[in-house]
């Protein structure tokens, strides 16, 4: 008996030690990929730290810090922007807020992760006092997605208006006039013509939320209603998923996207080589075009989404990143004022467009001369980008985010799109109902 006990102890130690003596784990802890500093040489400057997962966002805030220090020398900031890999940054933040130390002053939180930070006692500072006077100038749906109980916790990065990017080279070859595409029926007809004449698919469908969320939101449906009740398997969603299924598996005008999404190396190469005739995705994808798909310069035209019927929204605000101030900041007021300056003010919103190519969440700048000035996005695409936006401004549908949104997104990635569209092992109705049941079991 004693011997067995000893053996168990030895085995236990081996297991614990081996299990802990890890190899270099690339996904946890560790240093920032890149650190940018502004104003650290200034006297009396107050330290502000910012975490993000996108190098472009770090550049954006660094240039805002430079402008801030010029404008408010008496409130100068020594600004440090640290860029981490996506998962690592969110994990570190979660643990820092959970444990009560180590969090930065300002932080970028992606929309799918935002609900995690609104649970329990919220560890972020409300931004209401900054924006309440100016709510009319915002597309307020974009503020609501980072809010809880009437408080706004995140400064939006863009409107994320979903549009259709048409590859005019392919559309011309197929003899389709893109301005004649008004309804989704037109879109399907055009798609058939494209496939027939060129052999190229009209579009591709992502395995993730890009493949369903914009479409159901356009029809004023969602995964959750405004009371937080799960509506994942309601009739509109089933009908819409059947429509997606029809495009892919019946009409054959769409394929599943290479790599399963629109942000993978496989997809960039495919799209750049003229692999598909059109792409339904939010405006912020412009940056991806100019960065990863240079061959398409001058060939892409942006148009609003087609609709099913008159009551549908002309566009839907999708995706997003909210910048938040944490309650661990020693200078909450300064951090909030700087955040307003960088991202919520008119000037900040203009820079969101000129520096990042994002459609600003404040619509009152869409007409501003600085926004209308020539830049690489107008050169890559065309001049009337913001006229399209102004035209559909009153018709922006948005999404409801709850603490269980991450569960639904996971079901979409893992089961719904795969089973219903790619493998067709379930009908759209079965896939949605089953997924909804699983989410409900977590919600109780």
């Amino acid at each position: 008996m004693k011997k067995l006990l000893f053996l168990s102890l030895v085995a236990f130690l081996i297991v614990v030690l081996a299990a802990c003596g890890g190899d270099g784990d690339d996904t946890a802890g560790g240093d920032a990929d890149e650190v940018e500093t502004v104003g650290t040489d200034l006297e009396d400057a107050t330290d502000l730290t910012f975490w993000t997962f996108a190098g472009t966002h770090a550049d954006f805030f660094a240039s805002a810090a430079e402008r801030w220090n010029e404008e408010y020398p008496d409130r100068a900031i020594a600004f440090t922007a640290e860029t981490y890999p996506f998962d690592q940054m969110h994990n570190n933040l979660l643990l820092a807020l959970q444990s009560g130390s180590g969090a930065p002053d300002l932080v970028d939180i992606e929309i799918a992760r935002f609900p995690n930070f609104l649970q329990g006692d919220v560890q972020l500072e409300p931004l209401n006092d900054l924006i309440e006077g100016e709510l009319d100038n915002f597309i307020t749906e974009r503020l609501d997605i980072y809010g809880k109980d009437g408080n706004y916790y995140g400064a939006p990065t863009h409107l994320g208006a979903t549009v259709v990017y048409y590859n005019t080279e392919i559309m011309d070859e197929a003899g389709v006039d893109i301005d004649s595409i008004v309804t989704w029926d037109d879109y399907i007809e055009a798609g058939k013509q494209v496939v027939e004449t060129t052999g190229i698919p009209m579009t591709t469908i992502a395995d993730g939320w890009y493949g369903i969320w914009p479409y159901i939101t356009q029809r004023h449906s969602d995964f959750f209603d405004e009371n937080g009740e799960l509506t994942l398997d309601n009739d509109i969603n089933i009908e819409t998923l059947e429509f997606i299924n029809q495009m892919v598996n019946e009409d054959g005008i769409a394929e599943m996207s290479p790599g399963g999404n629109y942000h993978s190396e496989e997809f960039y190469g495919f799209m750049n080589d003229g692999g598909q005739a059109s792409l339904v995705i939010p405006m912020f994808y412009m940056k991806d075009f100019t960065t990863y798909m240079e061959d398409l310069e001058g060939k892409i035209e942006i148009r609003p989404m087609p609709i099913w019927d008159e009551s549908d929204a002309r566009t839907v605000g999708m995706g997003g990143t909210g910048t938040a101030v944490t309650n661990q900041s020693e200078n909450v007021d300064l951090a909030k004022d700087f955040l307003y300056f960088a991202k919520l003010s008119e000037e900040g919103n203009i820079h969101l467009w000129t520096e990042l190519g994002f459609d600003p969440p404040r619509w009152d700048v869409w007409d501003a001369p600085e926004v209308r000035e020539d830049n690489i996005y107008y050169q890559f695409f065309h001049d009337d980008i913001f006229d399209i936006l102004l035209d559909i401004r009153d018709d922006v549908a948005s999404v409801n985010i709850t603490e269980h949104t991450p569960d639904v997104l996971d079901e979409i990635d893992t089961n719904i799109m795969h089973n219903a569209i790619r493998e067709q092992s379930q009908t759209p109705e079965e896939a949605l109902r089953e997924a909804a049941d699983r989410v409900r079991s977590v919600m109780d």
Partner: protein
Amino acid sequence: MSATSATSKNKQNKLMKFLNSKKVVPYVFVSPFILSFLVLTLYPTIQAFIMSFQRILPGQVTFVGMSNYDRIFNPTFYKALQNTTVYMILTVFILVTVPILLAIFLDSKLTKFKTIFRSALFIPSLTSVIVAGVIFRLVFAESDTAVANQVLGFFGVDAVNWRYNSWSAMFLMVTLASWRWMGVNVLYFLAGLQNIPKELYESAEIDGANVFQKFKNITLPFLKPIIIFVSTISIIAGFRMFEESYVFWETSSPGNIGLTLVGYLYQQGIQQNDMGFGAAIGVVILIIIFVVSLIQLLLTGAFKRSDM
């Protein structure tokens, strides 16, 4: 002044003497390990155990009894367990048998360019798995023009959607792991081969033993401790596998074909912000690894050997 410094010197000497005494010095030497073990391993293990009975939100930590454990045994968990077990068995088999053969080839006098082969096999283990994953994903992309599908096409086989079938998903993970760890395991076995006295082979040859008899009766028995060691670490590494799945699908694979136990822990604990549930999964993984390792070590007789 000088008096105080003398006493402090005296004190120091006494302390040094005490630390150097035969009874104490072993503990001094092992103390760094013991301390780091207590702080970095034992404390988190105990803490994780406690957390597995809690629901954890910022500022709101509540005990919820067994409810985390009640939720664990669901279809998704069983799917993860199944994937992990299959993966573990395949990697243990491949990463023990193939390296032995490779090591024997590399040890043979007849092989040329040994150093090149040795380094070529070892380099993958130095590569970041994230970088390797990107390359693997491109090689095994679903388009007809991807390398793997072109090779299949050459043999007249249809293109495969590598990342979307459950058999090919397992193939990808096992291939990536085998590619990464092959070189390291070859090194273990090469070291083991150096310990075999050459005289044994010579006398076996005189007795007329052929290659296979020599392998079976001399090489294998001498390599047994290494085989036990390599298979033990492979079993444990198999159960706690995470990266090989993460680089292909991150945390959400279609139909959970790439979900592993640790992936499930990460997905639920961190991504869905359910740390209590994640901790409970961790405790279950620990128990599983413990039991399997114990069985394996008992079966291979590892405890009977003094030189393990």
